[in-house]
């Protein structure tokens, strides 16, 4: 190595600058990380839909990054009236109160109607079939008790850094919730 002295000093000067920059950067990162870590609760968050804000627009069926949306309809049984004429189950003006496909509101037939006792029927969702289109939710909320509502199902959701549905939600219904309380379930109709 026969580098000339001026170059040598240039090299050490650069070395010095580099060390300084590294020290500065490490201090900056340390301060930032420390500051953020004290504010960080440690608890990670996941996305969830606030059922009180959902306007049942239908975006949840199509805007999720997954082919099969991670949003599904869920049922708060304690809120349900077990109505014979369920406005979440039946299309408006059904021909008959039977489970024939043309009477149903759900495009995929995901709601199961089972007789409990006169005149009550239980409605439950088959999540394999539900596409999260919110048609039943709208029917149930407009005319019924509002016991059907949409939730992100965390066995499906990828917990995207930015939920793709939240960007287009007209009700601004999406928010981050703590990972140990990942659902916003309905306990009353409103």
């Amino acid at each position, binding site marked *: *190595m026969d580098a*000339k002295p001026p*170059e040598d000093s*240039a090299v050490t000067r650069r070395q010095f600058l*580099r*060390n300084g*920059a*590294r020290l500065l*950067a*490490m201090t900056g*990162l340390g301060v930032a*990380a420390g500051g*953020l870590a004290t*504010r*960080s609760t*440690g608890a*990670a*968050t996941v996305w969830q839909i606030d059922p009180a804000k959902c*306007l*049942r*627009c239908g975006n949840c069926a199509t805007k999720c*990054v997954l082919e099969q949306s991670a949003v599904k309809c869920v049922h*708060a*049984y*304690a*809120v349900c*009236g*077990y*109505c014979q*004429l369920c406005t979440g189950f039946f299309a408006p*003006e*059904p*021909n008959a109160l039977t489970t024939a496909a043309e009477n149903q509101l759900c495009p995929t037939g995901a709601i199961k109607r089972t007789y*409990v*006792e006169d005149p*009550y029927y239980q409605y*439950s969702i088959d999540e394999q079939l539900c596409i999260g289109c919110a048609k039943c939710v*709208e029917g149930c909320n407009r*005319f019924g*008790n509002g016991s059907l509502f949409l939730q992100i*199902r*965390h*066995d499906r959701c*990828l*917990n*995207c*850094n*930015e939920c793709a549905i939240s*960007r*287009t939600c*007209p*009700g*601004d219904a999406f928010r981050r919730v703590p*990972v*140990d309380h*990942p*659902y916003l*379930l309905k306990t*009353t*109709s409103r």
Partner: protein
Amino acid sequence: MLRRLKFIGALGVMLLMALLVSAEQRFPPPDFENGYSLPSTSTPAARQLWLQYGDTAVFLAALGTAVWLIYKKRSRRGVFWLSLFSLAYFGFYRKGCICPIGSPQNIVYGLFNPGYAVPLTVLIFCFAPIVVALFGGRAFCAGVCPQGALQDLVLIKPIVVPPWLEHALGVVPYIFLGAGLICAGTGTGFLICRYDPFVPFFRLSGGTFILTFGAAFLLMGMFVGRPYCRFLCPYGGLLRVASLASKWRVRVTPDTCTQCRLCEQSCPFGAMREPPSPETNPKWLRAERKRLGWLLALLPVLILAGAWGGSKFSPTAAQLNPTVALAERYARQQIHPVEYGLMTPEALSLQRAADNPAAILTQAADLRRRFALACALFGGWVGLVIGVKLAALSVRPSRTDFEPDRGACFACARCFTACPNERVRLGLAPAAQGAEPL
């Protein structure tokens, strides 16, 4: 007809009941007599916290292994297998989500939106690769980043990107970083995540636009080494700067460089640099210094001009924010009403604005103010990036050997075996072919 009447009758009864109990439930939950018990709503758990800490541990271990493979083992094969593992784990298994590339957005979002606490895992994912880069260069890009690994895999025949293009496109990551950070800071969204071309491949699903975008990058990646990394990745931009100050550097040769030029073409990413010719004409040197001086003096001007241009741009940029866009649509609707279909997202959001216009309008006004500041900052940032790039072009490199550029090198270890001395070290060539050890 009878059925219709029955239905209307039933509806009437329902409405009556609804009125009676309107305060609580329209239809009071029944008291069952046959012992029916209410099913409970299932709540499948989210990915457990300890698993997320597991991810972080795997991440740190991979980062450490990368450094060890690059500096101690000097093994391209090792780096390759590590990157395949990372592609499988962080890419296809974790679906590309939790990744350092988007994490600066979370940090900035957390700084400006007090309701959001940046999770510890995100902090680690964001800072650990930068700290490593400050000491040992872009080990993260070499062995841990699934996006980088995917591009490395598809590379078949690298072509040389002309230097002027390389330098010009080289500023794009910083501009993208700036745009991503102002969007995050104003709560507008996570642009960097939205336009990540490879995550849709990891998930095997995505919209047409992003899939086309990703496919274009993969196609390009067959002939241009790591196009996303070099010309778009904002986190790569951060690592590039951090590596400039790195303590240790990736060296082609294990001991001395004999200037044999055998490694000259070995970097598919155009990171290999020649040592400058030792005989420098003092006249040129003086001219170069002068140019550098001028460029440095120009820097504040560029920043100010950028800030000015940025603030001009702020009303347009603010419309990226859904709330601002809604407020503007609501205001337009008062003048030129547009009919939207029943129950469409457009109609429903307008209805929400109409229900409480004051809330939306004040929120939008506040956001516009934030955007005015953010856009000025962004403009200034763009000015700074361009100015620094220009100035950096006229700084003389200080290397004496053939060596990769600190910032541009992904530390992939491809070039090592091009060096005859390395081949001697590995026992692939007789010692006579190499240089004498010092």
